[in-house]
């Protein structure tokens, strides 16, 4: 028995530098999620999957899902567990909830994800990042913070395909402009091209606005089987149409190509196939713009344009409102920030609102939406496709 699965509610805490603990943030996200759809009560939720990557390092807390369930007044009886895939923890948790509901093992599942990353001592989070690559090999070489990795990706993409610093800056300008409409994001000030190009260097060629910030925050969504969804919302149903997740390697020595992400191509093909759509069908996408170069490569490997044309894709406005596919309409990681476990859920919330016609800035008539995360040193990729129709 395979069932259709719908996204019926979503909300997020304020994201940024927060005077709050990890558990405060999860409560804020769940409150916003229940407020988004007052028809759903905590007692309607039969399962909880929590997404968090740094809970042990930054909050000294394991066994997080029961703790969060208690904080949220949820008493799970189908599933109660935590999922970790660093930057894709939220999307991974969502895929698992989807599978459980589809199979009949759960009916109504909340997926809540987030991080508390600002510590009394700023060095702790950067230090912990050494465990995000292969810690015994890459981490011990000082590699773990993403900027140097993506700086070298950018240098190679520039050399191979002629991508320019200006094209990368245009991604930041677009996403910052989109972020102005998102009251819960970390940054709400637009920037112009000159500001982006003249910002201080972080790791050359990446400058300040090419990089997403460190962020405290959480987000939560509720997924339900179609039958329950009809009872629990009057809004248009938003269906999870297909998912894909792929990883081919982790350590830097085993990455054959830094500018074409084969794992992303595989994950995307799986998701397109299962969803029964093509790249050209996607109206709105939230992709993993941890760095501006990431979004450029994602246009290519998600099939929105040819390899090497990603820089031109943004320069010609094809990833903006009114273009071929509106990308990071809520501001992306560059505006909203990136509390690892929260990001995939933030993306899901924006796609849900776009497909229901109630986004802060609407992509007219959006029928298909896509979310993408990369995690680790571009080693693992997660793609989810949503639609307004079940098939």
């Amino acid at each position, binding site marked *: 028995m395979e069932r259709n699965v719908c996204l019926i509610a979503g909300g997020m805490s304020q994201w940024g530098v927060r005077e709050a603990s990890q558990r405060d943030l999860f409560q804020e996200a769940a409150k916003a999620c229940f407020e988004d759809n007052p028809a759903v009560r905590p007692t309607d939720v039969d399962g909880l999957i929590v997404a968090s990557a740094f809970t042990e390092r930054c909050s000294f807390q394991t066994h997080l899902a029961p703790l969060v369930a208690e904080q949220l007044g949820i008493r799970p009886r189908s599933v109660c567990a935590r999922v970790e895939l660093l930057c894709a923890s939220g999307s991974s948790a969502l895929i698992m909830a989807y599978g459980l509901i589809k199979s009949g093992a759960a009916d109504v599942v909340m997926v809540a994800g987030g991080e508390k990353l600002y510590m009394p001592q700023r060095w702790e989070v950067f230090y912990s990042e050494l465990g995000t690559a292969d810690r015994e090999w890459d981490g011990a070489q*000082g590699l773990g913070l993403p900027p*140097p990795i993506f700086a070298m990706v950018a240098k*190679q993409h520039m050399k191979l395909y002629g991508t320019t610093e200006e094209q990368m800056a245009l991604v930041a300008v677009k996403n910052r402009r989109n972020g102005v409409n998102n009251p819960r994001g970390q940054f709400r000030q637009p920037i112009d091209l000159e500001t982006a190009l003249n910002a201080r260097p*972080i790791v050359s060629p990446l400058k300040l606005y090419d990089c997403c910030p460190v962020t405290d925050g959480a987000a939560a969504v509720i997924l339900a089987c179609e039958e329950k969804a009809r009872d629990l919302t009057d809004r248009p149903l938003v269906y999870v149409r297909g998912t894909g997740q792929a990883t081919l390697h982790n350590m830097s020595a085993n990455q054959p190509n830094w500018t074409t992400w084969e794992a992303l191509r595989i994950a995307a093909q799986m998701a397109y196939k299962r969803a029964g759509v093509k790249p050209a069908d996607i109206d709105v996408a939230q992709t993993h713009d941890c760095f501006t170069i990431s979004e450029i490569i994602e246009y290519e490997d998600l099939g929105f344009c040819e390899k090497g044309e990603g820089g031109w894709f943004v320069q010609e406005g094809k990833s903006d409102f009114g273009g071929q596919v509106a990308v990071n309409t809520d501001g992306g990681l560059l505006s909203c920030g990136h509390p690892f476990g929260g990001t995939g859920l933030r993306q899901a919330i924006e796609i849900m609102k776009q497909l229901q016609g109630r986004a802060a800035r609407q992509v007219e008539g959006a029928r298909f939406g896509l979310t993408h995360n990369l995690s680790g040193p571009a080693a693992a990729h997660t793609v989810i496709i949503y639609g307004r129709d079940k098939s």
Partner: protein
Amino acid sequence: MTALPILEGRYAASMDFYPQQSKEFTRIWPFYEHLKQGRFTTTRCRACGRRSFPPRAICSNCYSEDMEWVDLPTRGKVLVLTEEVQGVPLGFEAPLIHALVDLQGEMTMFVRLVNCQPGEVREGDEVRLVVFPIPEVPQETRSGVIKQERVYYAFEPVR
């Protein structure tokens, strides 16, 4: 800032970014013994011939545990490099120079470049393995605490 009194003078492995290297804690401890001799090595499976990096106790291709140690090149060429000036992790000094290095066509990997100034090394330059001591680890045993000597590696320019 004062450290927490409970940790005064104590070693915490959960705060150590270097791996444990002794045979009590890892099955690939010979890698580090070879490193002390200036050798850069990895494992090859005797059953199927698959060479791996990082070295491993069990082959991911055929799951045999019959592994042999083989030498890797200790010289390579810089493909891309970048100098990190902001937010360098604790334990590393700014600028932290990372390079993607091609080890004579056998393997490419990210390494740290040391013993050079920013701007000194360029793409295409030759670099070589350099081994250095890192803080030793106190290991509790039945007969008391023993100090486990450790080394690690980076690369430096060939001048």
